[in-house]
């Protein structure tokens, strides 16, 4: 299956290019980031990030802890203030494109003892389309049920979320995103702490989304699976180290640059920025 899919992009670009020429418009990019800098208390977490993502592929985002992977997603989604830079989703700011985007936060970011059923959690994905003050309706629940079915969780609709395993909770988060029926997915470590069966199910789902022309961005930790899971790869460590097709950028050299100690000077400078000129505050 992956081999079959790898052939498609090779032939697809020429068609896409032809279409673009006919429409006399450049091929749209699902995500363009320009000069994005984000800082927590002056210490930059992301610095001068520039990228233009490929449409309709699965892009992996890797980098060491604290490299700014989650922050990049949050910056794109306006969840953290930017020091500078801009983000556009298919050519427009995120605020105008919300209906095209779904966000799958880290599983640990919420309290799983919260009193809500699996179905109601998934239904939250449809709240944007309901709008303010409108109550959840039967049709909303049915759409949520359909989304649960896509991740094999239909039998768990009435369960309280704390009764589910980590893998099942992760599937609910994915179902909530699927319920939004977006064009672009931003997933923050969807494979963290899930069982092997769930991991396989998620991979299959990602491939189905790509087959349907969606763009998927996945923050990822396991370098072993990078080649088999992703089309494009973004290697991040405070700045963009490399970005492009996995086959081109997933090299030892780039891994060394991303994870190795080459950036120590820059790290020191960044720490110093956090302390301020001449400051001797703690460096976190």
């Amino acid at each position, binding site marked *: 299956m992956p081999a079959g899919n790898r052939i498609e992009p090779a032939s697809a670009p020429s068609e896409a290019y032809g279409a673009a020429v006919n429409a006399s418009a450049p091929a749209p990019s699902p995500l363009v980031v320009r000069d994005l800098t984000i800082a927590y*208390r002056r210490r930059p977490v992301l610095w001068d990030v520039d990228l233009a993502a490929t449409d309709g592929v699965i892009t992996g985002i890797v980098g060491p802890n604290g490299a700014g992977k989650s922050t990049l997603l*949050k910056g794109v*989604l*306006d*969840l953290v203030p930017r020091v500078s830079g801009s983000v556009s989703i298919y050519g427009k700011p995120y605020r105008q494109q*919300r209906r095209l*985007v779904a*966000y799958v*936060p880290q599983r640990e*970011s*919420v*309290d799983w003892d*919260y*009193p*809500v*059923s699996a179905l*109601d*959690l998934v239904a*939250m*994905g449809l*709240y*944007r389309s*309901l709008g*303010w*003050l*409108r*109550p*959840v309706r039967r049709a909303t629940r049915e759409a949520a049920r359909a989304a649960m079915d896509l991740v094999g969780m239909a039998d768990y609709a009435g369960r*309280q979320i704390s009764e589910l395993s980590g893998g099942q909770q992760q599937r609910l988060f994915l179902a*909530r995103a699927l319920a*939004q029926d977006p064009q672009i997915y931003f997933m923050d470590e969807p494979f963290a702490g899930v069982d092997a069966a769930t991991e396989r199910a998620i991979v299959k789902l990602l491939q189905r989304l790509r087959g349907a022309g969606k763009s998927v961005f996945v923050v990822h930790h396991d370098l072993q699976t990078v080649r088999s899971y992703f089309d494009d790869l973004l290697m991040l460590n405070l700045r963009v180290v490399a970005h492009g097709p996995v086959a081109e950028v997933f090299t030892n050299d780039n891994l060394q640059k991303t994870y190795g100690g080459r950036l120590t000077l820059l790290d020191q400078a960044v720490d110093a920025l956090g302390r301020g000129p001449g400051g001797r505050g703690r460096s976190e």
Partner: protein
Amino acid sequence: MSWTYLDTGIVVVAAVSAMACALIGSFLVLRRMSMMGDAISHAVLPGIAAAFLVMLSRDTAVILVGAALAGVLTAAFTQLIHQAGNVDRGAAMGVVFTTMFAVGLILIVRSADSVHIDVHTVFYGAVELTPLDDIAVAGVRLPRALLILAAVFAADLTFVLLLFKELNLTSFDADFARAIGFNSRLIHYALMVMVAVTIVAAFESVGSILVIAMLIVPGVVASLFTRRLWSLLLAGQAVALLCAVGGHVTAITVPRWFGFSDTSTAGMMTVVAGVVVAAALVAAPERGLAARALHRARVALAVGREDLLVELMRVEERGGPPVGGRELVREESSRIAGRSTRVDRTVALLVERLRGRVRSGVGGYRLTAAGRRLATGLLRSHRLWESYLFAQGDTAVGEVHFAAHQLEHVTSAGMRADLARGAGATDPHGRPIPDAPDADAGDHSPAGC
């Protein structure tokens, strides 16, 4: 106990205050910011004082606006200190509300000596006096406090019903809410306004101690019993009602049993609230102490019963004689069940006899055919695990028994089938692995886990 219309009035006022606090306070509990209730209930003081100084009026509306502003300021300052100073949220709240409370006291003492604010009343309220201050509404004389409280309760109810979806979403996952375009911060501050207004309205009648208790206790108790937001809110209302009625009834009865006069209703309500929390911690289903102890006992019994069967099976395998009761009933420790005592084992033996898996005969106990079937399955699990663990290579031969002894209790027929793949005819100790009993499809349920 003599009950008059005054008592009815007191209970109704207390109940409405408690229910209003419970409704809005449950969201503080859900959002893990229960301390905010404490903080705002102190921090509203400068708001009230400032509102009075500016407007020169003790009008309720003026006071409520002042309180609402103070509530928003408390939340905003807390956020500011939390972020700018890298201080944890609880500490930030502590700094903000003590400072604001102190400022409020100074404002009152310096500029408003004539205002009647009695410290005693602030803490304990004067719910007993509320029925005396009444106004006529459509020919009926109602306590003034009740009218204010009813209006605030209605406002809380409207707020929660209208924004139920938004409150639910932002309480559960604020980041996701913002990502899909719901302004979590706006809802947060709106909630803080409602908290402040509710606190001030309830405060005058029942005092700050009870207000803090009623903001938190119903939500905490309800969360032990419920699994949905709406049922949690409803259960919270029931707890609030229980505290109000129970508090007043005990306030006018219990002290008399000991020859004292009546005590404060608000004080007693808080005591009742504490008792309710304690009772809920013990009695709550699944999450309560009693339920957990019961679960432990059940697991211990199940493990004890299974161990008993396997023990008899091993004796039978060696061709040994029936086992005496004294030997069978002894202490054992197991990592799953903790220690299984002689009592556990005695009960286990009794149950297995009643179920016809063990029979007593000359010289001691033996397995019946039914018992043998179950025991064979368990022994099979045990030895399959030993083989598996040994084959995996990370457990020494001497150690595999202890691990397998735990695992056999939680092994289903399906797992057994998986383990059987690649296993030989004997375990690492060279003892034969028994064949699957014919009832293997019937799967014994793993020891209550």
